[in-house]
């Protein structure tokens, strides 16, 4: 008997306790089904709730209520983790970062959905229409296995945000050409074609002091060429560095190779060291806050929206604010491209990147009647019509038929980068040790980013730690 079940038994036994209940889950009758959902408070989840309230008609004829607990992003993990681990059994659906799957599946909180897929061919068909990269990232544990858990809520990739007014300025174009004998990327396609070296050139080129000329006018404040995530918080450097490492032929510890995949020698391979060095060499062209170790995805986005940088690599999920003139000083001067890549030996662009976004998952204590409605709800959510509406409202879709629709690129300017980028997405660490791996790695990366440690030492430390931890956990033999 698991602790969880004992808790459950006892909770039932303690009948009088129910009398004291003030909040908490409401008892569902046959016709009345309430699905409780823990979600981060941001537009993609708000839209989901809105669509549900406005449009969802359950086929079963039951009254289905979606009770959404909107939790502010900064506390989302803490709240969800505490709710799950304390056995509160409060939520039926939980939005989860893909890397949390391991810990929460092992903990017995996330429900495997293979049986539901098998029982419902339509459901299975919908499920299989998801691009395999996001599907693996959002749904599988162990990673890339046939065990499925989640559905995309908001899939996300890194793209390159550019300032068209600055990049396409004739004067700047001319000077850039003169200096680097290359065209300064200006259109989306030109951005797509950028390598990290080009990105670095942009960074170097656009470093302007206050008062120096920028696109034909004196700059009203210091201006910087580039920005991307390099912060110590959560995963705000790993998500970027992973891309560098993969593109340049290195690798992270690969959980799909358990138990034979090693950390030592892989994580700190010469390729990885070179990749990290490349990453670090770009830091100096970023706004000064990068040197404090707090250049997270929000800070770089803020700097971009305030017009302090020419290019910013960031998640699509943060894009809406840059289009809104109320929150963005550059809303009418934008150009978007794919995240820069690395030219392979064969001259082809390698674009590996770490996937972002979140799936939502079912919890193990969800009752049969709730599950029935939940499956219907997910099917509805992943249906092309709703996904199109979602994308039109600022969301992204990983459903092939949706993002391949010509309409799709018209929804948002960055959508042109979406489909090509999907093919280059990877994910890491769907293991229960995720947070330990992440924290240590972020600490080490931070030391490198703030200039206290070189790339080699950094990766050696990380490799050593991972080797130890994962060996202890039995994931490396």
């Amino acid at each position, binding site marked *: 008997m698991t602790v969880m079940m004992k808790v459950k038994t006892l909770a039932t036994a303690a009948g009088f306790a129910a009398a004291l209940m003030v909040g908490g889950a409401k008892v569902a009758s046959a016709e009345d089904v309430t699905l409780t959902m823990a979600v981060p408070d941001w537009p993609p989840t708000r839209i989901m709730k809105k669509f549900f309230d406005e449009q969802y008609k359950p086929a079963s004829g039951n009254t289905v209520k979606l009770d959404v607990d909107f939790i502010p992003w900064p506390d989302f993990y803490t709240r969800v983790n505490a709710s799950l681990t304390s056995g509160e059994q409060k939520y039926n659906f939980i939005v989860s970062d893909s890397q949390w799957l391991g810990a929460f599946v*092992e903990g017995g909180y996330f429900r495997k959905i293979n049986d539901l897929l098998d029982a419902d061919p339509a459901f299975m068909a919908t499920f299989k229409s998801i691009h395999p990269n996001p599907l693996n990232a959002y749904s599988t544990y162990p990673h890339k296995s046939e065990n499925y858990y989640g559905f995309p809520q908001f899939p996300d990739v890194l793209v390159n945000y550019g300032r068209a007014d600055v990049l396409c300025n004739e004067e700047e174009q001319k000077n850039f050409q003169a200096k680097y004998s290359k065209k300064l990327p200006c259109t989306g396609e030109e951005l797509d074609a950028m390598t990290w070296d080009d990105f670095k050139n942009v960074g170097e080129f656009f470093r302007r002091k206050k008062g120096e000329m920028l696109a034909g006018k004196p700059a009203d404040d210091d201006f910087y060429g580039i920005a991307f995530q390099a912060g110590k918080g959560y995963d705000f450097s790993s998500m970027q560095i992973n891309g560098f490492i993969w593109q340049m032929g290195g690798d992270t510890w690969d959980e799909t190779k358990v138990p034979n995949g090693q950390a030592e020698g892989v994580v700190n391979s010469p390729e990885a060291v070179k990749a990290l060095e490349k990453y670090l060499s770009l830091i100096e062209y970023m*706004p000064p806050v990068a*040197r404090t170790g*707090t250049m997270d995805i929000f800070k770089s986005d803020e700097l971009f929206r305030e017009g302090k940088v020419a290019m910013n690599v960031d998640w699509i999920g943060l894009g809406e604010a840059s289009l809104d003139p109320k929150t963005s000083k550059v809303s009418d001067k934008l150009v978007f491209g794919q995240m820069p890549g690395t030219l392979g030996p064969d001259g082809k662009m390698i674009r590996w990147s770490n996937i972002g976004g979140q799936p939502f998952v079912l919890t193990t204590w969800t009752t049969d009647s709730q599950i029935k409605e939940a499956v219907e709800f997910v099917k509805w959510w992943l249906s092309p019509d709703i996904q199109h509406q979602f994308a039109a409202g600022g969301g992204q879709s990983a459903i092939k038929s949706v993002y391949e629709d010509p309409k799709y690129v018209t929804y948002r300017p960055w959508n042109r980068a979406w489909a090509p980028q999907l093919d280059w997405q990877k994910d890491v660490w769907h293991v229960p040790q995720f947070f330990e791996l992440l*924290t240590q790695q972020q600490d080490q990366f931070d030391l490198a980013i703030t200039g206290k440690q070189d790339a080699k030492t950094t990766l050696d430390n990380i490799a050593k730690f991972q080797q130890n931890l994962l060996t202890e956990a039995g994931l490396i033999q």
Partner: protein
Amino acid sequence: MSAVVIDRPAPQLFEVAPDNWKLAILAGLVVSILAALALPASVSFWIVGAMAALVAAAFVVNAYRRGYYGGLLVAPAIAVLFVMNIFPLLWSLGLSFFAYQSNQQSIRFVGLANYVKALTNDLAAPANWHALINTAMFVVFTVAAQMIVGFLLALLFSKQFPLRKYLLILVLTPMMLSVVASGVFFTYYYDPTFGILSYVMNQFSNEQFILMDNKVGAVAGIVFADAWMWSPFVMLLVLAGLVSVPKYLYEAAAIDRVSGWRQFWNITFPYIRGLLMLALLFRTIEAFKLADLVILLTKGGNDTLTISYHLIRIANEQNKTSEGAAISYLMLFMVIVLTNLYLYIANRRSQGA
């Protein structure tokens, strides 16, 4: 002092009587510990609760029978504290002897292994020690800054002057802010691109000013924000002491031509000593728990990881519950030693006077 003390012999230790609180505690402890060890958490919770009720009842009966107003007065507070604070504390103390992760379902008794690991393990111990040393540094700096600034502010406000009331509330406001808001705004104040600090500093030098890119700056930034927020706490306590000094003592001192320094130590200080100690005690305890500002301002970067933030990572992010509990009890031990030292010194002083 107490009005009526009914003389009634205390029951023998093992005599079963409703007022035998010693036996109740003994039985309660034994049963609770057995329950905690042998039964699942959810069952032992109720047993421990019942034992607490038993002990409380014994106390109340005992107090009532003997006219111990002390016991009766203290009982409700103890009851609330026990249920809401002491019980969870004991629970986590218990957990620190197990191998337990809150997101896994196995639990295994390991004795002192968590403590041994926290203190000696190659990977864990240096991190713990380092976080502890950082914490000690923050405790020293923030508490010292708060005590000094708070004290000086209190001196400023100790005299009556026009508009005092309105100026005082200005100084008190920082501690009313929520830590999240003030912390987030301090990231803004310190931000090299947008922030006011860098803006001001850049007027004086060509070099871009970045406060938080080194340890000294990062620590200074955190200490400043924390001291700014909590100095008013010290100030208000000290001020309460200062205004309680009867005015005629100062008049007497003026007549007696007592120097300012002597006046302070011999007249003023005795009135604020107790409150100063209280402020020191509570600020020290809070400083040991410093985490939110660190998280908001540096995420522990530039070597500012405190033990409390370290604990949040271990106990919350990584769900290593029992390991976290062990570290926190080591930390608790240090806080207890330190606060006892304070109290010892304070008591010796006041007895000597």
